[in-house]
């Protein structure tokens, strides 16, 4: 600990006075009082200057020299400085060690990491990132990352600054390499970018899609033949009585299989592209009226189906796809709602966008099933589902259709209370004045009750 500075200060002052006194004594002795005092003070000053010189010398080459051995105030200064120096050295070592540790650990990470500043220039990257993106140490710091990885989608991803989703790109067209990027903003506009090699996953996914598309395509032609013969057989009069029922059942099952296969084909068509559908303006009110009519004519008197249109707005979309999505939802409600139940088709618009909902009074779905409901062939009750005759692909189709319209599906349900399947469309999809519809596919939802 430092000694009390006041004591020391006093001591130093006394020392100067003592030196002056000694000088005075010597001065008196030789008969020149003032010369004596001045000489003594000059010697003292020279000593202080020499100490200062030592001190500065040591400060300059602190690491290689021992501290000067000067007493008094200078000694205090030296010990204070060397203590500060030691402490700084200690912290520096610790930070350096930590930094080295950090660098080594990120180097061993299986994913690439790149840190970018607010101008998207490279601040730092780890070894894996260098390998995946072809970056070079030393030369590439400070270069805009989008200038080195010149894929237009990537530049757009960085520019948009919306990092809630990841981006998957193929950096070189014609090569299978596929990279996934996930940005994480930090600090004042800086960005942490994670890079992963997802080539294998992308290949598997393509293989799966291709397989489903090819398999359903190949299944279709034999099925058509089987269904055709079964139909001829069942219509013939010369059919033995004991074969009538089995053939009817075979016909029903082959119809079901045809439905599944065509749903699978539609799904793989939808999956083939991620691009948003432009489409044309759809008169939602007319579409819902048609859906209601179809439901009512199919299951006469089974449910009470109501339509409530709360906004005049129409919807921009592909009429064929939207019809199939809405019909799937309405059809599901009809299938799972017991006779005497109510089904409501509702369309409304608020500041978030347009919403279509199918509300039923069916048995409801328990919460653990909700997240998996849109998976292919997922069944809440595997035993019961087959007799409803669905393909198990309806909700998956709905999800893909909505995805390609920038919309999302939300399901709310409580067991015993019924369910609500709602489609939420962004505002950009709304049209003020829907045009009366006819379209290329020959489908025209025009009210005809």
């Amino acid at each position, binding site marked *: 600990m430092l000694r009390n500075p006041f004591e020391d200060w006093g001591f130093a002052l006394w020392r100067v006075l003592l030196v002056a006194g000694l000088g005075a004594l010597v001065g008196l002795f030789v008969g020149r009082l003032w010369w004596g005092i001045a000489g003594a003070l000059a010697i003292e000053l020279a000593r202080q200057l020499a100490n200062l010189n030592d001190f500065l010398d040591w400060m300059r080459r602190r690491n290689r020299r021992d501290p000067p051995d000067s007493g008094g105030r200078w000694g205090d200064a030296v010990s204070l400085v060397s203590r500060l120096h030691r402490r700084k050295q200690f912290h520096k070592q610790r930070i350096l060690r930590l930094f080295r540790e950090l660098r080594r650990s990120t180097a061993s990470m299986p994913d690439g990491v790149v840190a970018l500043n607010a*101008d998207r220039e490279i601040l730092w990257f780890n070894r894996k990132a260098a390998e995946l993106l072809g970056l070079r140490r030393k*030369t590439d710091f400070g*270069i*805009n990352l989008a*200038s080195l990885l*010149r*894929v237009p989608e990537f530049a757009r991803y960085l520019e948009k600054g919306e990092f809630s989703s990841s981006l998957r790109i193929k950096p070189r*067209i*014609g090569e299978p390499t596929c990279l996934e990027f996930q940005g994480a903003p930090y600090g004042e506009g800086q960005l942490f970018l994670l890079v992963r090699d997802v080539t294998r996953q992308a290949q598997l996914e393509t293989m799966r899609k291709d397989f489903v598309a090819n398999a359903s395509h190949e299944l279709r032609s034999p099925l058509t033949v089987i269904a055709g013969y079964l139909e001829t057989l069942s219509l013939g009069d010369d059919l033995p009585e004991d074969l009538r029922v089995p053939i009817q059942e075979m016909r029903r099952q082959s119809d079901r299989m045809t439905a599944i296969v065509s749903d699978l084909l539609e799904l793989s068509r939808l999956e083939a592209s991620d691009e948003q559908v432009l489409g044309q303006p759809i008169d939602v009110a007319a579409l819902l009226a048609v859906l209601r009519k179809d439901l009512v004519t199919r299951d006469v008197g089974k449910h009470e189906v109501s339509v409530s249109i709360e906004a005049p707005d129409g919807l921009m979309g592909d009429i064929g796809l939207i019809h199939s999505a809405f019909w799937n939802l309405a059809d599901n409600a009809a299938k799972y709602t017991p006779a005497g139940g109510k089904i409501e088709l509702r369309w409304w618009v608020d500041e978030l966008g347009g919403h279509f909902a199918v509300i039923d009074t069916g048995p409801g779905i328990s919460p653990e099933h909700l997240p998996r409901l849109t998976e292919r062939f997922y069944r809440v009750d595997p035993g019961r589902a087959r007799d409803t005759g669905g393909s198990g692909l309806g909700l998956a189709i709905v999800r893909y259709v909505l995805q390609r319209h920038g919309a999302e599906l939300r399901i709310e349900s409580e067991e015993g209370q019924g369910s609500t399947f709602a489609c939420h469309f962004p505002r950009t999809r709304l049209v003020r004045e829907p045009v009366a519809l006819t379209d290329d596919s020959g489908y025209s939802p025009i009210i005809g009750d």
Partner: protein
Amino acid sequence: MDTIERSQHISRRFNEDLERVRSQVLNMGGFVEQQLAKAVSALVEGDSTLGETVARDDFEVNRMEVSIDEECSRILATRAPAASDLRLIVAIIKAITDLERMGDECEKIGYIASRLATQERPADKYREIKHLGRVVQNIVHDSLDAFARMDAEAALKVARQDRLVDEEYEAIQRQSITFMMEDPRNIRRTLDVMWVVRALERIGDHAKNICEYVIFMVYGKDIRHVKLEDVESQLAQRGAKN
């Protein structure tokens, strides 16, 4: 040595302007690279829609060229850059012209690809084009990398690779001539294919030009119309002096 001092500007805005226009050029380069890859794959795979898409999207390249050109004029007028900044702007103005021409060649390939897609595809022919396309794509990619990094050594290396393209071009030409002599019914299609090969060769030349601008930017030395060996020895001398 091979990076230009870009940090010592009194005006921070000026620096930002330069950086922005530079990254715009590389954006444009990235788009052209994509167009080239798509055009070659449209031809090789016989995908007529992809070919049409490439031909249609060329307007995007033109739009980028105009906007970068305007930006450069603005910088020249308002900032009056000097020394390395001036060289950067001059190099950019030249490079975007080359990029735009590359875009035009891609458009041509895309157009021919969509036309050839309707015809019978020869079993072996397009393999040559695929290979040449790969070489040219690499050259374009590396030249733009050199531009982004201001790496004169890499630029020189890429410029030397252009000879590879020329050799490949010769080989395909000779092969095509034999092909046409064997069966005159092939002439029409082979001529179309020759257009594509020619376009690819031109794209390689434009990439080489970009490399020359990189060297101009870094050393302030114009190496157009000079033999590459001479350039190398001159640059080596310079390197020794510094």
